[in-house]
């Protein structure tokens, strides 16, 4: 009886450590250099994703907008918030790029063409980025202390049981979608 108690206690401690302690120990948070409200841009300014995350003339994806893109509207502070003041004074006026921490940054051995996925396959941005475009503030960036990758690559849930299509950006997730759509890519289609 006593032995059984200790056996189950050890198992329970391990389960607790694995499912609750591990994510806490593995992921560290880092604040974004500036807060940003996607909602204000989308709802108030009536912009859409491609207004800032646009495609260049050659069809390649420009990714995170550069500061001159922000400067087109924010050359002068728009509003009185401390955040707006910081944007103009610290970045727009000295023409300094904002060091955004990118939640969906893929490792360097991967290449991903937004042009093919958005324009050709007509996937919605939400398919991989969820409701990010509707958020009022930027959540803290979380990174894995061992691999250095963003938490969004593994997905929020440590079990990798996905509740929505945008949870997880590992190779398996890409392959699931490719299988579902019947799109062949081959190794060199995504890896360099």
């Amino acid at each position, binding site marked *: 009886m006593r032995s059984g108690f200790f056996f189950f206690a*050890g*198992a*329970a401690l*391990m389960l607790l450590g*694995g499912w609750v302690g*591990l994510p806490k120990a593995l992921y560290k948070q880092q604040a974004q250099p500036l807060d940003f409200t996607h909602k204000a841009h989308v709802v108030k300014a009536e912009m859409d994703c491609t207004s800032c995350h646009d495609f260049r003339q050659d069809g*390649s994806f420009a990714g995170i907008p550069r500061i001159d893109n922000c400067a087109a509207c924010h050359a002068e502070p728009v509003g009185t918030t401390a955040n707006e003041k910081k944007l103009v004074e610290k970045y727009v006026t000295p023409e300094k790029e904002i060091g955004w921490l990118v939640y969906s940054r893929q*490792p360097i051995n991967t290449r991903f063409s937004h042009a093919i996925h958005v324009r050709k396959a007509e996937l919605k941005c939400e398919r991989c980025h969820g409701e990010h475009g509707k958020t009022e503030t930027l959540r803290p960036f979380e990174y894995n202390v061992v*691999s250095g990758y963003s938490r969004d690559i593994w997905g929020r849930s440590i*079990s990798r049981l996905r509740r929505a299509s945008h949870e997880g950006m590992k190779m398996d997730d890409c392959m699931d979608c490719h299988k579902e759509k019947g799109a062949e890519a081959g190794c060199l289609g995504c890896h360099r």
Partner: protein
Amino acid sequence: MLKRRDIMMLGGGSIAALPLTPIPYKLLDDVSIWTQNWPWIPVPMAGAASVKNSVCTLCRAGCPIGVRMIDDRPVSVMPRGEAPGAICALACGSHQLPWHPSRLRTCLLDGKPAGCDMVVEAVAKAASGGRTVAILDERPGRAMSSLYRRFASALGSGAYTTPVIQETETLEALERLCGGKAKLRFDWANAQTVLSVGAPLLDGWPGAAGLIARRAKGAVKLIHAGPDYSRQAQLSERFIPLAPGSECAFALGLAGALMAQGAPEAEGLRGFESIVTRFPIERASAMTALKPETFNELARMLTGNSPAVVVGGGDFASGPFEAGTEELLAALNILLGSVGREGGIVGRPEWPGEAVSKRWNELPDASVDVLIADRTAAGFALPPSAIERKLAKGAFVVAVSTWNEGYASRARAVIAAPAPMEDWAENAAAGLARWSVAPAVLKRPEGTVRPDEFLAALAGALGLSLGEGFAIEDELKNLAARIHSAKRGEAAGQPVKEMAAAGDLWKALSEGAEWSDSNAAATDLRPRLPGAKPDEMERLLTVANSHLPKSKHEGFPLALLATGWAASGAGAKPPLAMKVEVESLLRRPAGRAAMNPVTANGLGLKAGDPVKVETHRGEQRMILALDDAVLPNAVEAALDGACGALHLFETGPDGTWRQAWARVRRA
């Protein structure tokens, strides 16, 4: 009170539960990623991404490419829209070539690093006093080729030469049979059947890229005849394996079968008939190791799905055919009624950059005192024996090369030329009216010297005047202006005649567009069949009879064939291409000798054995691969970027090295 047993049970419970937690799986994943991201592994710096349109100049197929840049660094190469499918593994890694280990960053004199001025002084000293200087341009038809020609004519005693240009060999033989009145081209867009005799049309053959797409749609039937089961053979509907060196006999046998079906009216028919009569199908069958019915069946396939064309020219590794073989392959086109017919061989206008040049093998033996060999753009694999044959005793060889490979490593001096992407490069398929320009996307290292800079310095040292505008950019713009004033062809989807100024054409070209002119010239082509004169007849019969497979050299019982592809003449291959080659066996990696298992068994050899392949000229260590597709009693040597095994081949007086006799032993 905790007992030892309680602690053991606690530990046991934890270990039993461990697989039910994410710990082992997650940590395994993270640790494996961590090992790929150690801080000492270099990471490319972030920067602004852009894509520069260009053209691949690594082989003469000239595929359109996009070079992806991060700031001013090329980071990858990808195919561009108009590329017929994709680019090859060689091009995928071409941006790595400037960092290749055998890349030269400084000129060499007698194997030691030297300044360009020291090399110029040494070459000028060797060339002074009316000694014979020859230039060997491996990629003729470029604007740089015109600068070489200008230099040779300023020199007076200079000869500008090129290797045999394989893709135009059959056409040139036909042009001669048409009395030299017209320039010709294959009408790849409309041909229904194509018989390639040794010619790798789907594997880097300039100008034939359209065939790949037509073949995929089933719009053209491809038949390949040759001694090796090459990529072309694999992609053709029918492969006809020929005994090594029997292409001429094959052509005569096929001519006999075509004539038996009723030949069209053509000048010289009677003389040709008498050649065919003296070389019956049975004889061709014995020499080629084909059944006599195969010739008749093939003749029916060609005439039953016309227009049909026959293409020779040889391949990039085993080199060209003798002139007689080409003449007979040209004659097959006349017998098929394909000359001057849509879908066959049609007339074409001359292109503004075209010039007649001497072939290297036309120079008298032992006549060249100073050789300037341009190896900056891979053109043709040439065995050292082909070069040495023409060199006088003590000749001074200076190679203009990016790599310390091939015969650049045997030269007295080497001019370290810029690597691909570091300088203007061009793709001009001589005689095919296609021209494209690859702009420099990378700064070249300081010690490198452009070929035009070297020629200008040499002219200065020799007191020659080369005239105004002796620089590659000027010459490229000149050529664009000449094309514009001729109002020929189109570039970037726009006819040149609609371009207001030559500058518009130049702009399109320098942004990666290809100029091409696919117009046919209305020409009255009246070809005559060869063999009308007795000496012509005897010459052709001698060529056909000279490759009896039984005439084996004593002690060297195997037919050695060089295999490779369009880029076999390239000085170096990027690591990615090597990896793909070695790991996928898409191409036989360099340094492999392949044999039929039956032949290998007879010699007591097995796959993977290190072997020594020996010929009268030398030996080469290779690893043995067994392949059912290799003909019995033959051994195939795969060439590497520096054409390694080619030193085993003897070059004949006609400039060919189709095969050598060899023996293979365990090393």
